[in-house]
């Protein structure tokens, strides 16, 4: 099966979402033009990893086929107002009104919803021009809320343009050809459990497909059980070796669990380097590209 047009990278905080999103966008950009959409453009961790200065404007070009775009909820709200209120003077006036500001803030995720609508449009345009979109999304809890927001909007806006958009956004996130979640996880009990729960919640509550779980920072196996026993006397070295094999084993168990749940798992090796730079990102990207359908 072909890769979803838009890949939404999320995971528990600290599991390497930005690293994976950057590596994935980098790898995919060798096949076709790719846009990396950063939903937290102020921090722009992914762009920094790709060697770009933090984007001052809305977009930073990394290479001829790779571009990083920062998306903000506020900009989406403004764009939406311009679309539904064609008379510029009136839409400007609406945006300036503080009352309106409070009302939109009080509405459940109107801004988040518009962000999703933006992603839908990006995926649509990307399909027309055979481009790929990768999203550096918020951490899993917020991501789930974000993806659930379209359904909430159909509830509060039973008719009108918001309702129509909500329906198209809902079918967008349910369409595996257009939308797929990439889940980052690290070989730790808690992160693995949270990732498994998230794949279930995505599938059962939202009808969203998880393309793959990315087991980030998986150590390469080094010691056998017998060897660990043989170095028991070297306490500190033994602990360090056990630590490595523990993580290795956790990744192994997680693979079985994800596979049973129908989610392919791709392991990314721990980068034993003093810093993460462009070369490390390219290396991780290579491993990702090899594991994903093209």
């Amino acid at each position, binding site marked *: 099966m072909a890769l979803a047009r838009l890949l939404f990278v999320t995971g528990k905080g600290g599991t390497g979402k930005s690293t994976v999103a950057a590596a994935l966008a980098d790898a995919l950009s060798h096949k076709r033009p790719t846009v990396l959409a950063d939903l*937290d453009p102020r921090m722009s961790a992914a762009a920094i990893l790709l060697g770009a200065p933090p984007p001052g404007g809305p977009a930073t070009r990394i290479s001829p086929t790779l571009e990083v775009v920062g998306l903000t909820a506020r900009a989406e709200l403004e764009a939406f107002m311009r679309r539904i209120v064609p008379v510029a003077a009136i839409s400007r006036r609406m945006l300036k009104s503080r009352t309106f500001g*409070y*009302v939109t803030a*009080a*509405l459940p995720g109107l801004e988040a919803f518009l962000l999703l609508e933006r992603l839908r449009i990006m995926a649509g345009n990307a399909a027309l021009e055979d481009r790929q979109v990768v999203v550096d999304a918020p951490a899993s809890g917020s991501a789930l809320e974000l993806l659930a927001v379209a359904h909430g909007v159909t509830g509060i806006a039973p008719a009108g343009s918001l309702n129509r958009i909500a329906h198209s956004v809902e079918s967008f996130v349910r369409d595996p050809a257009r939308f797929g979640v990439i889940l980052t996880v690290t070989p730790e009990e808690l992160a693995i459990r949270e990732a498994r729960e998230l794949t279930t919640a995505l599938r059962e509550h939202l009808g969203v497909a998880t393309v793959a779980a990315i087991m980030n920072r998986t150590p390469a196996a080094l010691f056998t059980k017998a060897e660990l026993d043989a170095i028991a006397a070297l306490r500190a*070295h033994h602990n*360090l070796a056990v630590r490595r094999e523990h993580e290795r084993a956790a990744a192994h168990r997680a693979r079985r669990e994800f596979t049973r749940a129908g989610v392919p798992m791709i392991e990314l090796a721990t980068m034993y*380097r003093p810093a993460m730079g462009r070369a490390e990102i390219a290396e991780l990207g290579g491993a990702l590209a090899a594991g994903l359908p093209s």
Partner: protein
Amino acid sequence: MNRLELSGYRLAICLGPGGVGKTTLSATLAIGAAVSGRAVDMMTVDPAPRLLDALGLDGDAAEPREVKLDSVPRASDAVRHGRLRALRLDPKATFDAIVRRHAATPAVAEAILAGRIYRNLASAFAGVADYMAMEKLLELAAEPTTDLVVLDTPPTAEALDFLNAPRRLIELLGSRAVGLLGARRGTRMVDMAARAILAAFDRVTGLKLLADVQAFVGGFDGMYEGFAERATRASAMLRENATAVIVVTTAEAGRIVQAREFIAALGDAELRVRAVIVNRVMPELPDAAEIERARIPIALKRKLRRNLEDYRALKTRELISFDTLRAAMPADAALMVAPELEHEPRSLADLAQIGARIHRA
């Protein structure tokens, strides 16, 4: 003093980027103070299930519950255990309680609670959760038998989202917009422009907001003064000398960037950062010479050397992070290290152990 000492403080607030272990460290600090004999309340916001278990809390512990400290050894200088109570913030329930307490009549309260705007405001607008944490904090701090309140904060991208919640509420309540919608006491004039705008919005979106907004704002008539007064008090409490603002991070490069932004933002807001704790720091690495001395096969020695080298690279990464962080430290704040445990914390004893290992960088 090597340890993080909270003895002079009445309030400790843990702030930091998501996924760094804020809740774990809040619990650790609360337990540490309780086993040195103080009466401590801790409020968590979004605890992991395992941490809830460790603290003996369940899903709806919205009021403080006693945490049994029997499994934790007493601090060496303490005559006896103090006490520890923990609660989990429920923003919606807290807001509901405030509305019920302050609405003019029970019927008005129920009307507000049932309104669409209110229901959405209370559950979806992140700022409300922040403000409710502040409300609950004022309530806990007012308790005369409590020596110290430890507050874990909601995960936010920006430190000030949380700390500015009282100020934002004052601003909202004092704003022209609210008055012009005809709700604030004394001003009954409705801003025709605001109405026209909402009506236009209703037409295109199909939301029918105008009536709801007016009902919502109208329902709060007479409650604003109380809100504003408490928000002002909360804002002042955050800046008292007896309040310790603690920034929590991990040594991961991305988190360090965020932690630095937190520190800068806190400084700008004139909130004094007392300590920055780097959580889950790798243990010191063993000596390479031990490998050479050991009587084990050459091949195994080679593997041990490689393993040590691998972890050295990661340790170097950590040290670079510490240097970056050091350059951003506020003048009188302590840079502390919380070493990682061999496993994820599962019990009060594990949490206490983290506390015992926290030391100055």
